């Protein structure tokens, strides 16, 4: 049902490199899993609005007040994998 090619496409979309074992096994595992999930299609859901937040709650918003998060930025930058001054550093972004 799911081919190895499709697995590689999905992995790319999700930005995940796969090791040898994953490349070998994922296609079959996905096929089994999605095959099991097919039972969903038997349910008549016409006109049913999907449920997202399961319990009833009131909408909240916050007042527009700026808060200084006390050096959180510099703390996080300091501990980041690579930085230059107070900026995060990554390989060159094309485009």
């Amino acid at each position, binding site marked *: 049902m799911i081919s190895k090619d499709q697995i590689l496409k999905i992995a790319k979309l999700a930005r995940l490199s796969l090791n040898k074992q994953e490349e070998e096994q994922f296609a079959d595992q996905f096929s089994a899993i999605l095959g099991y999930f097919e039972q969903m299609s038997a349910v008549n859901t016409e006109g049913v609005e999907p449920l*997202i937040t399961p319990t009833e709650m009131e909408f909240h*918003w916050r007042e*527009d007040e*700026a808060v200084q998060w006390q050096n959180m*930025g510099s703390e996080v930058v300091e501990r980041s994998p690579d930085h230059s001054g*107070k*900026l*995060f*550093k*990554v390989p060159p972004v094309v485009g």
Partner: protein
Amino acid sequence: MATKTWEPVIGLEIHAQLLTESKMFSSDATAFGGGDNENVSPVSLGLPGALPVVNKKAVELSVRMGLALNCHIRGKSRFARKNYFYPDLPKGYQISQYDEPLCQEGYVEFFVNDEKKRVRIERAHMEEDAGKSTHHGDYSLINLNRAGVPLLEIVSGPDLRTPQEAAEYARSVRQILRYLGVCDGNLEEGSMRCDCNISIREKGQEKFGTKVELKNINSFRFVEKALEYEIQRQIDCKESGEEIFQETRLYDSTKNKTFSMRSKEEAHDYRYFVDPDLLPVIVPDSWIEKIKKDLPELPLSRAQRFQDQYQLPQYDALILTQERELADYFEAAVQKSSQPKAVSNWMMTELLRLLNENKLDIKDSPISSEHLGELVLMIENKDISGKMAKQVFQEIWNTSKSPKVLVKDLGLSQITDEGAIEGIVDKVMAANAKAVEDYRGGKTKLFGFFVGQAMKESKGQANPETLNKILKKKLDTPS
């Protein structure tokens, strides 16, 4: 081979940064000029466990703009996640609105070459801005101060037909944004961004051609130029049988051309789904009504009122209502002086010129509306002559002192008192008896000479009309 007639079809997507203190979904500051990665919080850093909370003011400003664009405001709208990977996008998704945007189905009207044009607003929705990345050869640097700043994305229908119309449309949207205090519309700094969608089709054809998106346009002039270039590029393509690809192209202002962003453009699959960290945004009718009631007079309505109420020509009215502050200034000066046309002339010929030359906004004008009004009133009351007024105007600009004070200090009061002028004329005539004789003998050209002498005697302060009147009377009537 005959060339077909091609019709461009243009739509604009405008992103406007909202004038809030804090970000769309978190309380870190939006203020410009913070140190690198200083205006951040767990939410805008995309830390594990961080959650978004909606900024009320951002919703308010968005509703305000939506109403000004004649949109239907949804009482219940939802946020959705737009998923893609980019280093300046800390969560790996942008919170935006997809199926249920806040504002829909509006329109905006504006003038192009004296003709009124209406463009549909398909939707206006709320979303958050990404951070900024700068590129340095073999690495890039990321600053997240901008990540999370509230944006309103305004999408027009494909109703524009020329680059000029597109630029005017963008200008009028910016004008409204500024009128409402929703966004400061600074294209150079990026607080407002314009992306264009452009396709062409044969005139008369109903179906749309392949759409190309243009980005990286940071002035209205470039909106026109980028579109001009792209339209021609697409026409050339079509006429030489080439295909137009659906893609994003960047505008290069130095070369004045558009170029493709990637050699192989992969269509993004954003996998939109309703953001489960947020509840639907509920905007009560009563709140919308209140915002509607508090809307300031919009530019086009205000211009119309200037024409109706002050009998100004359309041309003047449109210029004076270009910025809300300018229109406010005008009306304040008119209130002071009750001379709308005169105020308009002074503003359009003198004040705007000086402001432009000195790169100042009306709000920084050294001449206040009070003072301009006072000056115009003084001219009207003949307290000073038109010529004097120009000098006084310059002095107010230089010193910011009131015209009354300046006129007094500089002794520039106009003499209108007939008795006083008679005295001056008598003096001049007495000192130039021969000339009087010559004039009365037929050398009427000498009239100018007497005017000059009288003006000199009065240090230029004699009211010209009165002077002329009295001089003529005295010269023509031998005593």
